[in-house]
């Protein structure tokens, strides 16, 4: 794979949106997206926010069990970063509806020809919520804080290629890296997922410490935290930031409630206790859709899920055994029985939200397509009759695993469900101590995030022993290529190999659904993110 030295394609202020759309059209992804929802094609921030009704409180219910911390450099839950932190903190860049990269704090940026030097031009007169000016030097402090070994930020690895960071003046930030890294803007500099470099005010850390900052952070995004309202794990209140560079958001405030139980979330919506439900679970889609007071907005998800087989253990060291499993799964039946028909069939590790690279399952013939006869033949060839593999799972929802167990019995596999608690699950997950498990990727800013982690020989999540030198080479090429068109072709090539090698039997993508009461207007869906500054309440 030859390296393209056309890094200007990633320079700002709009990254390759045209290229992305052209590619999306070519791959049929736009057609797919258009079927999902008309709002999907809306571009971000077109509205003059001051022309819409001002005021009111949005009550947002969130399907999480708690909020461990509000410090972006410490938060590891993608949903919290995408839905809460993205409203409190800004990034250098942010996403549009197609996950294209557009300006946030940086109004423009350039990337050197060798792809190593990023020069950001910040907006002038930016301020933090406490009124302190926000300049390029604050980004340097943020970099130093995130990468401080004593601070142990889980996001430090996103900044590991940086060799130099400099601020020649208040609005210029120059970041130099040791090697080109195409996903850098999305994974390390963006609002939401790129939280490693969300600017942090040093004066506040000096005053209240890192622990205090995790409870009552001071950011620079469109909403600021009401310190007295914060009860981590119960919720918090945000109020409009008057001096936000984009102008004061229409909403006065947002009340965020943590609602761990699924049925309670749906009831809270129906009883009028919340105005917006962040994520509508599969079981709630028809229930809420039947009520004309609610609007469900659907965007393609950035996630994919598959049944992972551990190649270091028999029988999964045999490619025929893995392909037998992949072909024995009727995805339509799985969708219907495990998810009430509310998920999308998945053919590989590229999620529908990445329109520039996603391939519609209807246009792709996967070798993993359901074919019970062939599956039985392969199972016989691989001697699966006596195999009793264990499928490791957490206790939250056993239906997907139970459906797979039933389907795999058709080819003579006696799958045992191995139910373990969450901590043990992750420990065994990381140690590669499992035969099979259902896993995948949830909130990503770029397909590189998880494809590298799962399919690169030394990838951090590749605990299943998958190794294909050709895939390794393609992954390195994808990271060092700036041309999105070329990257898309590489990802699609990786997907084809992954389908054939079948370390995973690819299963489903979950669309990103959110629900509102009808007075909530102006929401612009961005997959797995909830940027709320465009929302207004009708009747205010």
């Amino acid at each position: 794979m030859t390296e393209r030295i056309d890094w200007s394609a990633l320079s700002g202020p709009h990254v390759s949106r045209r290229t992305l759309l052209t590619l999306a059209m070519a791959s049929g992804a736009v057609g797919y997206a258009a079927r999902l929802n008309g709002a999907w094609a809306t571009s971000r921030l077109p509205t003059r926010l001051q022309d819409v009704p001002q005021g009111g409180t949005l009550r947002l219910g969130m399907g999480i069990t708690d909020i461990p911390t509000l410090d972006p450099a410490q938060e590891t839950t993608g949903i919290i970063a995408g839905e809460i932190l993205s409203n409190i903190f800004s990034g250098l860049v942010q996403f549009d509806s197609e996950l294209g990269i557009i300006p946030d704090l940086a109004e423009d940026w350039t990337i050197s020809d060798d792809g190593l030097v990023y020069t950001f031009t910040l907006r002038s007169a930016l301020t933090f919520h406490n009124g302190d000016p926000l300049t390029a030097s604050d980004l340097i402090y943020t970099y130093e804080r995130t990468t401080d070994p004593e601070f142990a930020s889980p996001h430090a690895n996103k900044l590991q290629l940086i060799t130099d960071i400099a601020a020649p003046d208040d609005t210029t930030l120059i970041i130099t890296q040791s090697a080109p890294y195409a996903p850098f803007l999305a994974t390390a500099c963006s609002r939401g997922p790129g939280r490693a470099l969300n600017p942090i005010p040093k004066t506040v850390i000096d005053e209240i410490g890192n622990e205090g900052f995790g409870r009552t952070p001071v950011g620079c995004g469109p909403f600021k935290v009401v310190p007295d309202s914060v009860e981590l794990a119960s919720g918090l209140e945000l109020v409009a930031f008057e001096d936000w560079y984009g102008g004061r958001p229409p909403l006065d405030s947002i009340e965020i409630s943590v609602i761990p139980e699924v049925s309670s979330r749906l009831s809270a919506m129906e009883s009028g206790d919340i105005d917006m439900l962040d994520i509508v679970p599969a079981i709630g889609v028809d229930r809420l859709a039947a009520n004309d007071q609610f609007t469900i907005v659907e965007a393609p998800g950035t996630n994919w899920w598959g049944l992972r087989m551990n190649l270091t253990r028999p029988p999964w060291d045999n490619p025929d055994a893995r392909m037998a499993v992949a072909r024995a799964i009727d995805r339509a039946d799985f969708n219907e029985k495990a998810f009430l028909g509310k998920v999308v069939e998945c053919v590989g590790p590229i999620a529908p939200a990445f329109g520039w690279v996603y391939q519609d399952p209807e246009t792709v013939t996967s070798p993993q397509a359901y074919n019970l006869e062939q599956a039985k033949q392969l199972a016989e060839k691989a001697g699966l009759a006596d195999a009793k593999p264990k499928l490791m799972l957490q206790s939250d929802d056993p239906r997907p695993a139970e459906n797979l167990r039933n389907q795999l019995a058709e080819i003579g596999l006696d799958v045992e469900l191995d139910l373990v608690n969450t901590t043990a699950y992750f420990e065994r997950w990381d140690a590669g101590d499992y035969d099979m498990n259902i896993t995948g990727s949830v909130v990503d800013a770029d397909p590189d995030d998880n494809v590298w982690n799962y399919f690169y020989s030394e990838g951090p999540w590749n605990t299943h022993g998958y190794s294909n030198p050709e895939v390794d080479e393609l992954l390195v090429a994808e990271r060092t290529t700036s041309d999105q068109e070329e990257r898309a072709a590489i990802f699609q090539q990786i997907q084809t190999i992954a389908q054939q090698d079948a370390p995973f039997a690819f299963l489903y993508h979950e669309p990103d659904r959110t629900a509102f009461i009808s007075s909530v207007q102006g929401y612009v869906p961005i997959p797995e993110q909830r940027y709320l500054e465009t929302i207004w309440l009708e009747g205010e």
Partner: protein
Amino acid sequence: MTQYIIRRLIHSVIIVWGCATLVFFLIRAIPGDPVIQMLGPEYTPEAAEAMRHKLGLDESVITQYFRWLGNILQGDLGSSITGAETVRGAILSGLPKTMSITLLAFLIATLIAVPTGVLAALRRNSFADFAVSLVAFVGVSMPSFWFGIILILIFSVQLNWLPSLGYASFTEDGAWEWLKHLILPSLAIGAGYSAILMRFVRAGLLEALSSDYIRTARSKGLSERRVVIIHGLRNSLIPVVTVAGIQVALLLSGTVVIETVFSIRGIGRILVGAIFDKDYPMVQGTILLITVIFVLANLVVDITYTLLDPRIKYG
């Protein structure tokens, strides 16, 4: 009596210390590494090592134990290892919620159990007795989370009378808001509790009413009302109070489920979340608190015996 209470308090300290120590080592014996879970998708061996070092989890368990014990003696319960909260902060925010639910549930249960129990005992084998017993059986068998969901569907979704989630502070939001948020969760656990309590009131009163002193009281010509309430009910309360004491602790654990259904983060939910996350300091702190409450509740029960039955004396 004072000496007795002091002795009991000293015993209590030993019990609490024993429980705390047991919990400290047991929670570490459960399989699973909190750091790996905490890092989730951001896991790399290097990040895990750095975080372990930061949290002091790379030290020996014995070192960790003595450090923790030393901090406890200075009143420092530590900080959550999985989040930005202090254990003290979490308990101070969770305790009023759980206590409010528990006390209101206790009140609701008593208000239901005592009159219905008395009625069932006085009209033994009547239709009323049968009906009350049937309702009690349903109450005992009904899981509180299911009853909670049914209450939400009726009173929040259909009638829109009461909120389906959250907690309002008595001091900041006012008594009515506070009560409005508590009625459904308290009713959900109080109903089951009242059924148990009612069975004890009925049985206790039946036994008391067949005693000689009741016959004496009746023969003295006392009114039936006085016989039942002063002589019968009071003497039947010893087993009821015993059960009530145990049940207060059970109510505390009963709130775990109901706090989840009603999205109220009280002690129960803090504890369960901490166990799932293996947030050691939070588990240790909340169990310490629950142990203290349990031990004190038992002490209160024992002292209440002396008020109910002057023949009981501690010395």
